[in-house]
């Protein structure tokens, strides 16, 4: 019989660090004046000393993810497929460009981490011309990948420096082929995490690969009923300091794209209560229901300017409301989830340390009543001991 070895699980978020040993989770607010490793050693040094490097598993969402711009030739196939793959790789899409109208699009002022170019089945060619190259000359990007027609690949390669050419994501029956682009984007995300100076230092305490937190959380979903009385179908909201991730069962989406994963995820990069506080407030002020929501919470919009515990609570409640809006028919961001069909909403991340059950349920009920004009009440489940993260980390460790 093999002896089970105790593991140390660490999650480095943008705002908090969580450290889990068997049955016990510690949480610490990040000291932004220190390197992550120094901060971790200062706060959890005694715990760290107890573990060998092989027994330490770390994940991080501290980088907030990569950004991408997608250029495709149609909405129904190339842009739809690339968007689906990018989102499921945890990448934030800043814009999609319909190639035939590329001259009408403005060039993003901020640098883009990765540009995806896609279009055409393999037997089609000459889908792109000089307007693409002119646009790219004005754009600042770190990586560029072509996943369109293989007949067009040689021209694309000769015209665009350092372009990575991968197999087409559209097969000859116009179906999606996701694995190559997904692997490329997931590796970029991974390299981005590992490339962060702060994160690199964490390899001083672990021999294992450092994964992105949304990836770990996604791993836990098929096994979530081991820890919680979750009634299917459900969505999971991970609301933290820099980002809000939503994980959902594919049954909740009308799109009939056939892929291998049972659960998809979306990362809303600029929806957090600490590092992304300003953009969250901006999104809130742009939402016509928010003033009514503030009134319902018995506060005025002045609360958004405050830096108090009460203000953090309100921001967390706004984040719940905004992310539900973004996945509903109202203010749809990318997907339109069947929110009236869900039976449970699971909450994890920093939000669980700030809001109680009643405060969460209040916002969910407000959303359903005001936006969906429904009395539907999915059960709210709060993961206040980070069980989902530890479950995912253990799942991954078991797979390795």
């Amino acid at each position, binding site marked *: 019989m093999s002896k089970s070895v105790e593991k140390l699980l660490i999650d480095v978020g943008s705002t908090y660090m969580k450290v889990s040993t068997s049955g016990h989770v510690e949480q610490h607010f990040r000291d932004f004046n220190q390197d992550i490793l120094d901060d971790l050693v200062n706060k959890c040094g005694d715990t760290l000393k107890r573990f060998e490097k092989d027994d330490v598993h770390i994940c991080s969402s501290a980088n907030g993810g990569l950004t991408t711009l997608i250029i495709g*030739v*149609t*909405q*129904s*196939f*190339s842009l739809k497929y690339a968007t689906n793959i990018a989102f499921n790789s945890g990448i934030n899409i800043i814009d999609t460009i319909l190639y*035939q109208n590329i001259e009408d699009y403005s060039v993003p002022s901020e640098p883009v981490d990765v540009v995806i170019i896609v*279009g*055409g*089945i393999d*037997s*089609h*060619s000459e889908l792109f011309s000089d307007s693409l190259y002119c646009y790219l000359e004005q754009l600042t990007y770190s990586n560029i990948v072509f996943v369109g027609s293989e007949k067009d690949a040689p021209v694309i390669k000769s015209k665009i420096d350092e372009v990575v050419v991968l197999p087409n994501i*559209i097969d000859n*029956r*116009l179906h999606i082929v996701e694995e190559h682009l997904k692997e490329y984007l997931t590796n970029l995300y991974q390299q981005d995490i590992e490339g962060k100076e702060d994160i690199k230092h964490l390899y001083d305490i672990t021999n294992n690969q450092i994964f992105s937190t949304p990836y770990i959380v996604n791993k836990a979903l098929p096994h979530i009923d081991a820890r919680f009385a979750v009634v299917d179908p459900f969505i999971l909201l991970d609301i933290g300091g820099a980002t809000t991730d939503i994980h959902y069962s594919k049954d909740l989406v009308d799109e009939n794209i056939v892929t291998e994963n049972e659960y998809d995820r979306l990362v809303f990069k600029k929806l957090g209560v600490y590092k992304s506080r300003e953009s969250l407030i901006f999104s809130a002020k742009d939402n016509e229901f928010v003033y009514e929501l503030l009134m319902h919470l018995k506060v005025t919009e002045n609360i958004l300017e405050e830096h108090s515990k009460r203000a953090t609570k309100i921001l967390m409640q706004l984040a719940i409301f905004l992310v539900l809006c973004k996945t509903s028919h109202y203010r749809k961001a990318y997907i339109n989830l069947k929110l009236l069909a869900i039976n449970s909403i699971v909450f994890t991340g920093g939000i669980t340390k700030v809001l109680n059950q009643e405060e969460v349920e209040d916002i969910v009920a407000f959303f359903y009543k005001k936006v969906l004009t429904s009395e539907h009440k999915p059960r709210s489940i709060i993961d206040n001991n980070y069980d989902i993260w530890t479950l995912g980390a253990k799942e991954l460790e078991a797979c390795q």
Partner: protein
Amino acid sequence: MKVVTGVVGNDIHVVANRLIDLSLRARGYEVFNLGVNTYLEEFFDAVVETGADVLLISSLNGEAEGWGREVKPLLTQYKKLDDVVMMIGGNLVVGRGDPDEIQRKYKSYGFDLVCHQIDLNTGLDMLETHLEKRTQESNA
């Protein structure tokens, strides 16, 4: 030669769709079959992605007229579909109608070939004749 085909709108006549697919393949066309319940945008987008020469839309449940009216306005949004042969066939009206009037109406919607209640092989013969004529005209 490439053909995009499918059944437009909320129409699930899959047998007719399958017969069109098989008949086109038997005549040597490369077929991209979008199946039933297909929106117009998906048809046009499939033509762009495949570089198809022909778009053959079928309709059996009488929805064609509603969708047909949308063809021309939608086509104006696409920049490279001028040379595509637009064909529609099946049961194109609800109830009875004057065949000449139906032809005229659908051609005004933007279709080059209209096959209302015409058997499949005759319709595909019409397509071949049309394509041959077009080739001769472009060579002349």
